């Protein structure tokens, strides 16, 4: 510990502490501009100068000077204050538009700078926070200083958009005077794939409504996973809960039953080129609209186009990727109702005219039809017909600068062109990308459309052909939230019932292998659809797991030596039965 005196007050601090930190402890304010606790001291602005008393009485920058035993510091000495004020006046002349500098000047009692102002709009005070952030924290080194002396400026190489920039916007975040803004960075660089819906932080909860409400690190936007630097979150987390070195690991858990709820994948709207998704900025999918309209979203819930204006007319296109032989023949069930919700939100939040293009309005649930009627009363324009294309090629003056939805209105019996500002594609539900792999792992089957196959569509809708494996949610078929919750409840109670009983009823009719006859050819092992047969290498024979065997008989019919026999249906028994028939 080091003892020192600041403005006559004694303080004891750890070795290696700076004067600024020691003064903070005594609650003695010292103005700073280029200092940031997360960055190495730069000591360039020179407004934190304090007077160091003693033999060589001199001014030192408090942000950078380490304390020493017996040091005597004056923060308000005439010499220090005069020098600080002059330096701030010089900064004021350089960057008259920097609000933070003006505020600090007011605090220090400076009304106006006595030096020549060259650019009244200049905001940059050359504190270097952006450059140092980019170097020390981000590790991207995308920006630096160019030129010498008064011509010094923050610059990218050759003034071109920097290839090294990863668009993390940390520079704008650290800039104290708004000389670099998020807009600046985004003008130069398109970073966010989601239609530039705005930056999302790398550490975040997936959505505000997420359960459990636990933050995660998004490796795609985390600076550390791009440059190997940063780790700011690790430094500031007092609970030391963050560990960047953590990796995915495989955990083995022994369980009695499994509920599969692997969910669905949203239909990729760019597969239908005619709808222009990915080509036109203001054609967005349902999930993107959900993000846009969310109060914790990039626009704080305001419905805005990419140019920042509110749309005047919005079209909602139903059945995108559903009920279409080219993509998916089935109905995705949920799109009609969420589209109606969107129409309602649009009516509520904007003054936009809303057009809803449907084939059939499928309002199947409780209170759904009533909601549809309410929407009609609210003035949503419902147009029956499948949209043939979305285009930006105007034919009339009214269509200029708009997106035009071309549709056959089957109620009017004519082709219509509806100009709108924004198009929302009600994308359907598809089985998850790895649906078939999951099915293989759990030894269950998929139906023709790749959703998991239940044991019986009416009598056993949550069970599968594998005992102890149950289904819940959209992995089995498209369904809405109430249906999913109901199915999940059913699956959970089935699994519980099994666990509660503590015993398991075996199939009475299973296969059995005669050890004396088995030649160990292992043909049965590869054929068994329930992986119930294991090869015992010690004995040189195949063995059947009674708990897994479903008695399908595949191995029995395939066994070349006749070693595999079905209980109660042995060859001798069947032959005896046949003989018995012939006796009569």
């Amino acid at each position, binding site marked *: 510990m080091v003892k020192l005196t600041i403005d006559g007050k004694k303080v004891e601090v750890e070795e290696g502490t700076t004067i600024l930190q020691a003064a903070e402890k005594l609650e003695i304010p010292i103005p700073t501009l280029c200092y940031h606790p997360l960055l190495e*001291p*730069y*000591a*360039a*602005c*020179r*407004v934190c*100068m304090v007077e160091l008393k003693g033999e060589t009485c*001199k*001014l030192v*920058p408090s942000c*950078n000077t*380490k304390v020493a035993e017996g040091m005597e510091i004056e923060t308000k000495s005439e*010499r220090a204050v*005069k*020098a600080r004020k*002059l*330096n701030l006046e*010089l*900064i004021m*002349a*350089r960057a008259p538009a920097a609000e933070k500098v003006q505020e600090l000047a007011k605090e220090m009692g400076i009304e106006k700078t*006595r*030096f*020549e102002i060259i650019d009244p709009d200049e905001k940059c005070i*050359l504190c*270097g926070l952006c450059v140092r952030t980019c170097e020390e924290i981000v590790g991207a080194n995308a920006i*630096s*200083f160019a*030129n*010498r*002396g*008064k*011509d*010094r400026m923050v610059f990218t190489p050759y003034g071109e958009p920097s290839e090294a920039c990863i668009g993390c916007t940390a520079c704008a975040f650290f800039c104290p005077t708004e000389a670099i803004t998020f807009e600046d960075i985004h003008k130069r660089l398109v970073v966010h794939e989601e239609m530039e819906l705005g930056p999302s932080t790398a550490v975040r909860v997936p959505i505000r409504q997420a359960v459990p409400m636990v933050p995660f690190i998004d490796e795609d936007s985390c600076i550390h996973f791009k440059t190997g630097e940063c780790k700011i979150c690790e430094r500031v987390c007092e609970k030391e809960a963050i560990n960047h070195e953590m990796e995915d690991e495989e955990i083995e858990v022994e369980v009695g039953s499994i509920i599969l709820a692997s969910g669905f994948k949203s239909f990729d709207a760019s597969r239908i080129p005619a709808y222009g998704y990915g080509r036109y900025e203001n054609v967005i999918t349902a999930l993107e609209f959900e993000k846009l309209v969310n109060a914790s979203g990039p626009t704080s819930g305001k419905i805005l186009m990419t140019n920042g204006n509110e749309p005047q007319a919005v079209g909602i296109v139903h059945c995108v990727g559903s009920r279409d032989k080219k993509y998916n023949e089935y109905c995705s069930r949920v799109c009609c109702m969420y589209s109606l919700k969107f129409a309602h939100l649009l009516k509520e939040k904007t003054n936009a005219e809303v057009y809803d293009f449907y084939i059939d309005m499928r309002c199947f649930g409780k209170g759904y039809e009533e909601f549809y009627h309410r929407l009609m009363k609210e003035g949503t324009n419902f147009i029956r017909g499948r949209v043939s294309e979305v285009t930006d090629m105007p034919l009339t003056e009214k269509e200029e600068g708009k997106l035009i939805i071309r549709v056959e209105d089957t109620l009017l019996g004519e082709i219509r062109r509806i100009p709108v500002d924004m198009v929302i594609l009600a994308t359907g539900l598809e089985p998850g990308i790895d649906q078939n792999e999951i099915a293989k792992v759990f030894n269950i089957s998929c139906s023709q459309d790749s959703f998991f196959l239940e044991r019986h569509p009416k009598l056993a809708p949550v069970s599968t052909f594998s005992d102890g494996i149950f289904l819940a949610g959209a992995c089995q078929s498209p369904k809405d939230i109430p249906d999913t919750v109901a199915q999940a409840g059913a699956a959970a109670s089935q699994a519980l019932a099994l666990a509660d009983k503590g015993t398991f009823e075996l199939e009475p009719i299973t296969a059995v292998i005669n050890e004396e006859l088995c030649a160990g050819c292992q043909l049965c092992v590869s054929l068994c659809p329930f992986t119930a047969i294991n090869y015992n290498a010690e004995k040189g024979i195949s063995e059947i797991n009674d708990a897994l065997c479903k008695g399908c008989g595949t191995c029995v019919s395939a066994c070349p030596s006749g070693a595999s026999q079905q209980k109660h249906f042995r060859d001798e028994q069947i032959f005896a039965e046949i003989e018995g028939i012939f006796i009569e």
Partner: protein
Amino acid sequence: MASYRLNIMICAGTGCVSNRAFQIREAFDKEIRKNSLEKEVLTVMTGCNGFCAAGPIVIVQPEGIFYQKLTVKDIPFLVEEHFLKGRPVKKFMYTPPKETEPIPKMNDISFFQKQVLIALRNKGIIDPEAIDDYIARDGYAALSKILSKMKPQDVIAEIKKSGLRGRGGGGFPTGLKWELARKAEGEQKYVICNADEGDPGAFMDRSIVEADPHTILEGMTIGAYAIGASKGFVYVRSEYPLAVERMHNAIAQSKEYGLLGDNILESGFNFDVDVIQGAGVFVCGEETSMIASIEGKIGEPKPRPPYPVEKGLWGSPTNINNVETWANVPAIILRGSDWFSKIGTKTSKGTKVFSVAGKIKDAGLVEVPMGLTLGEIIYDVAGGIHSDKKFKAVLIGGPSGGCLPADCLGLPVDYESLTKAGAMMGSGGLVVADEDNCMVEMARYFLNFTKDESCGKCTPCREGNAAMLDILTRITQGEGTMEDLDLLEDLAHAIKDTALCGLGNTAPNPVLTTLRYFRDEYIAHIKDKKCPAHECRQLNTYTIDEERCVSEGHGCDVCRRNCAYDAIMGEKGKAHRINQDKCAKCGVCYEVCKFAAVKVD
């Protein structure tokens, strides 16, 4: 080695080269061949002799006959008379002003008499490109002495005892710096030679590197042995191509001789040196900027501490010394600290090399013992003021130094006295000003330099120097106010107090010293709108003495014809007059009038 009857040492310093020294050598060689003297006479291009005002200089050894201001046309006669017939040619020798008899030998010339040569001990005597020449003058004897007989601690103790202080400007005790570097923790350590000389009017470091590169290498090797470094860098500005070339050549030669590289002189000590060329940034002469530059980063200073001896090049302990400091080291080791510490004053030991320039008769490079007064350097060594005008001030220490007035001529040259007077030793530039120099303009000139060279990192240096320059420019144009003067003084103190590195800390020195010693000149500019030295032309009034114009010049009309602004009225044979409304105060009429009819006020 072949021996020759005569060695013709031709100075290849900058001044002499621009006075056609290389052509003179060609002429010598041609004449020598013509007279079949190739086996008897050898021509050698040496480093700077120092007496630049007399260039191009040739010294004929072994007699030490000094020839000056030679031209190519003089050579055939000189070769025939001196080399063939053995009669030194008096008309090419140096004759002191007001005397008639020339001085044949160099060491008898007053310019050289008060000089004591340590760092420059080999200048003009050896061929800088021949290691054997250096060895013949006890070169590398100091290195062999320490490697065979001294422990690193002994070397440091010896340097400490000698009282050698940094010659780059700060005057930090060299031995102490070495000791700190030795004690600093780190496996890899570095030594650096700072040859990034950038002061206007300074050429000491350049001359030493060009005249005697091996002494620097030897000094660095000794320093590296003392602190435990295995790698060194010589940071030279690329504007010094000859220095770069000679340093490269010296490194190659000493490696060949086993005096550099692995296992030097079979001692097991390894040391290697690389040359790094600076890109002409003044602030890279500051040690933290230099380190950044060597690392390949932008040449910008970093706050100290940590000092380079603790955390320097690539984070390793690094010892940086100036060219002249390194050049002193071998001599101290060889002749002992007692000998060295007898030269100089109580606090400043040894000698200091100065480049004397400006309004001085014998401009050039001098090495004088510390403690000699400024007056002795200016009048006794450098011959006094040009055209015998009145001495006004001397700027010592380059743009970081201060302007000292005539009262300070009795000031002994040592670190403390100069700092007390508001100037600094700096690297050793001396620029002399006479009565025709305006001190405000002088301060403005040097500030303009530091403003241009400021890296721009810290506020006071970047913004403050430019603001001071603005004020000074206003004053020299007659637009200054007394408030400006107060603001200027406040600014100068604030910059000196708060700038980040040495460049900024010392940039206000010319302003502060001129304000201290020549405040009346500032006031004359502000209150009377007059420049007492008539250098700030915007404040001058040009008039023509009509009587003199006719009586002396017969109305020659030259001024009217040269006036670009049609401000002069008159015709040939008649008196001329200046229309003050039209006059742009360019001063051309004053310069072209051969009859002193144009008056300036």
